[in-house]
Structures are given as C-alpha cells and as structure tokens.
C-alpha cells in the first residue's frame, strides 16, 4: 500500500517553482545524517551509565561502543548499494520520508537500549536501523539536484554533501548541551538526549521531504539550453544501474574514490595525535582538538568549493588536481615537521582535508557525466561501497605503520613519515586510474525501447 503524498507524481513541481528551494530540502536531510560524524561525543558518557562519575564494573567499554558507529557506516554502504534503485524509481520524497523514519527510529530504539542497558539494542537501533536510514538519506537528493541543476550539477550536489560534512558541527554541541540539561548526580542523560535528537531529526527531515520536488518532464532552467555539441566526457545517454557495474569507468571511479578517501580518512583520525607528536611541546592536546575542528571546517567547505569548481574545469581535471596536489602536500607534511613550521603544516592539512571532502562531493557529478542522470543516484549508492572499504583500510594502514615504526625504534615525531609517503603513493595510483577514464562505450547505453519500458515500470519518473 502506498501513501499518495509520497508518490513521485505528487512531487512534480508546478510551473514557476523556484529550483533554489531544492538545496535546502536536501540540506534538511544531509545536515541531520551528518550527525554520524559526531556520534563519538556519546561514547564517553555511555561508558559511565552505571558508575555515573566514572566507569563501574558492568559499564560498557569504549571498544564495545566503537562498533555502533562502525555498524552504522557498514549499513550506510549496504543500504545505499542495495536500495539505490528503489530510491531512484520511487522518487526523493518517499526516500527521504523512509530515511527520516529509520534514522529517527534508530535514535528512539537506542534510547530504549540505554534505558535497559542492553548494548545489542543500540547496535540494532543506531547501527542497523539508523545506518540503513543514513544510506537511503545520503543518496536520496542526488539525482533530483542533478536534474534541477543541469547547468551546475557539481555545485548542486556539492551543497547537499557539504551538509553531511556540516551536520557534525550542529550535532556535537547540541548533544553535549542536551546531555548537560538531562544529567543529574544519579543519571547521565544519554537516553533522553537520544529521544530529543531523534524527534528533532524526524521533524527536520520531514520538512525536507515536504519541500522536495522533481522537475516536470522537459523542464529546463530559464535561459538554459543543452549544448549543441556534447562536451567531451559528458554523456547525453543513460546507462542502466546494473550495466554500469560492467563498465571499466565504474570501477576506475570506484578506485578513484576509494584511494582519495583512504588517504584522507587515514590521517583524519590521526590529525590530533600526529600534530602533537610532530610538534611536541608546541601543539598541546587542547590546541590539537581546536585544529581538528578547523580541519573539519575545511573538509566541509571543500565539498562546496571543489564540486562547484568542477562545473568549470571538468570532473576529470578536478580529480587530477586532487591527486597531483594531494601527492605533493602529503609528501610535504613530514618536511613541515622536520623544519618545525606549524603554519605550513596547518596549511597542508587544510588543503588536504578540503580535497578529501571535495572527492565525496564531486563524485555524483562525475557519475552523471559518465552514466547519465537516469540512474545516477542508484549508481552513486553502489559506489559508496568504496567509502566503506576506505573506512577500514585508511585507519588500519595509518595505525599499523605507525605502530611498526615505533616498535622498531623510530622517534614518535618521525613515525608518521612513512605513512604520509605511502598515502602520497596511493594518490599516484589514483592519478593513473583517473588518466584511464574515457567515455562509456555506446553498447552500455540504454536503448530508447528500454528507457521507455523503464519509465512504464516506474511511471512516476519524468524523463528529460
């Protein structure tokens, strides 16, 4: 049974609808799910649910709690990959509505887990249910934004994905403030905070679902006309979601994303420790936490800046910049430590993090250029498995190499040098992958008959 309010037909925009209402709709969703990056603020309080002032026997350990976030990211990748086609064919409102129920529901189930002190309920709540909501929400506005902004697809998707980077800026202080309001000398206040945040996110995401619209068939922005001559590496055809998996382009872009994210995520988690050890005595733990906040801002702003830039210089060239400049900067970081130049270190890291975010934000438009708009959201969902892979490889590489160096007598200040050179090497491989990206062969393009059949199968879809 379907609720008509959620149907794609009900979301087709009326004439005169302003397309600049779509980015806020997307941001309503992405700002909420960006909370995932700030989940760690709950970790320490959840280790003291019984002991209150300090951990008591029976309290959960940090290692056990770390699995909540990991599970959520695994289910983000899995749901985006598996449900991508469902999201694409059912339209953005149904997807956003479902994502809101899952994400907020995850918080509410987790609150029960905290209340009953049953960790498996939190794994199920935030990890499985919330993680599924994360995946659906992440891809839900992508193709809609691309259709509304055929003239600036990079900028449009960059705005939404910037929201995912920015969500943590809201969630972290909000969570801390709510816990302080609900805590008493005998109670930590995590369960109540989960309930309030779940309800806030439910309302916020529902507003996004209510605002979102898809353009009417044949719609184009005022003054826009499709280029008479197709641009190189920008297709006007569509590729079916599962046919995209058969193309070398999909796997080249998969590796491009995976390598860019591996390099970034590897040093992201280590930025605080690395800055303190490289500049021992000059950067304190408190200053390092401030630096991490600053780098996160560059991560967020880079999402908008680089994806917008890609509309002018092209997707392939944007990734060439990420890989060439990234290689140079990663290789330069050990030198900044050797000469003790904190300013240069911060500058290198700021640009590295901007390109890390930029890699996430530019990839939907890269997929659109390669595979067309029809299934871009679903293909993007499949590509997010690269993120899940990088999320495992990046931190493992950095942690193990550092550990190996330290146990073999390398000074702490130099222990990260090999890691940085290795990351630079990964970016060189990414550069080579990007070099091989060519237009998708026409045998993978959907034929007119197939496209029509797909439209009939999903009659709510408006073909441009």
């Amino acid at each position, binding site marked *: 049974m379907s609720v008509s309010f959620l149907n794609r037909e009900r979301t087709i925009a009326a004439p005169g609808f*302003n397309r600049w209402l779509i980015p806020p709709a997307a941001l309503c969703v992405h700002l909420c799910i960006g909370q995932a990056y700030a989940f760690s603020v709950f970790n320490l309080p959840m280790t003291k649910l019984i002991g209150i002032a300090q951990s008591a026997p029976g309290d959960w350990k940090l290692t056990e709690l770390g699995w909540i976030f990991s599970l959520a990211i695994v289910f983000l990748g899995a749901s985006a990959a598996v449900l991508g086609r469902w999201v694409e064919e059912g339209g953005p409102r149904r997807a956003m509505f479902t994502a809101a129920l899952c994400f907020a529901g995850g918080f509410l189930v987790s609150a029960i887990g905290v209340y009953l002190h049953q960790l498996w309920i939190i794994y199920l709540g935030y990890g499985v249910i919330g993680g599924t909501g994360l995946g659906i929400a992440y891809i839900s506005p992508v193709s809609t934004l691309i259709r509304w902004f055929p003239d600036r697809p990079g900028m449009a998707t960059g705005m939404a994905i910037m*929201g995912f980077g*920015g969500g943590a800026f809201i969630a*972290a202080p909000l969570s801390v403030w709510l816990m302080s309001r609900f805590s008493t000398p005998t109670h930590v206040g995590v369960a109540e905070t989960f309930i309030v945040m779940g309800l806030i996110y439910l309302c916020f995401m529902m507003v996004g679902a209510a605002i979102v619209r898809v353009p009417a068939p044949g719609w184009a922005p005022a*003054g826009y006309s499709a280029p008479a001559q197709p641009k190189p590496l920008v297709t006007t055809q569509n590729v079916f979601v599962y046919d995209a998996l058969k193309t070398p382009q999909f796997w080249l872009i998969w590796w491009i994303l995976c390598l860019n994210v591996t390099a970034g995520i590897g040093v992201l988690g280590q930025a605080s420790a690395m800055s303190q050890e490289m500049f021992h005595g000059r950067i304190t733990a408190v*200053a390092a936490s*401030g630096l991490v906040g600053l780098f996160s*801002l560059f991560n967020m702003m880079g999402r908008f800046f680089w994806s917008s830039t890609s509309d002018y210089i092209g997707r392939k060239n944007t990734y060439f910049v990420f890989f060439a400049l990234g290689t140079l900067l990663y290789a330069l970081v050990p030198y900044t430590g050797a000469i003790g130049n904190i300013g240069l270190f911060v500058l290198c890291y700021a640009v590295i993090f901007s390109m890390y975010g930029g890699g996430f934000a530019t990839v939907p438009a890269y997929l659109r250029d390669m595979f067309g708009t029809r299934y871009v959201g679903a293909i993007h969902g499949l590509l997010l498995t690269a993120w899940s892979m990088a999320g495992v490889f990046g931190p493992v590489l950095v942690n193990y190499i550092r550990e190996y160096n330290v146990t073999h007598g390398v000074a702490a200040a130099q222990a990260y040098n090999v890691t940085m050179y290795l990351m630079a090497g990964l970016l060189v491989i990414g550069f080579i992958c990007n070099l091989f990206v060519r237009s998708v062969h026409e045998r993978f393009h959907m034929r007119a008959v197939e496209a029509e059949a797909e439209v009939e199968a999903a009659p709510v879809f408006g073909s441009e």
Partner: protein
Amino acid sequence: MESARQSPSRGNGIKLALAWGFVGIPLVWGIVQTLVNAIKAFQ
C-alpha cells in the same frame, strides 16, 4: 526542451528565505560554536 520561465515572485522569495533560514541558521550556529572552541583551544 521546453523552458519554464521562473519569475521570482514575492511568495517565492518568502519561501526561499524561510527554507534557507531553516537550514542556514543551525549550520551557522554550529560553525560559530566550532570556531569559538577552536579559538579557545589556542588561547
């Protein structure tokens, strides 16, 4: 391709302001909080 003319009416302007304010205000608040904490960290 058929073009649909977009005339920014007063109603549209109010909707836009509300929608962007709805997402912009919390985001700016969060960024300011982060910057304040970052500045505190360096003091």
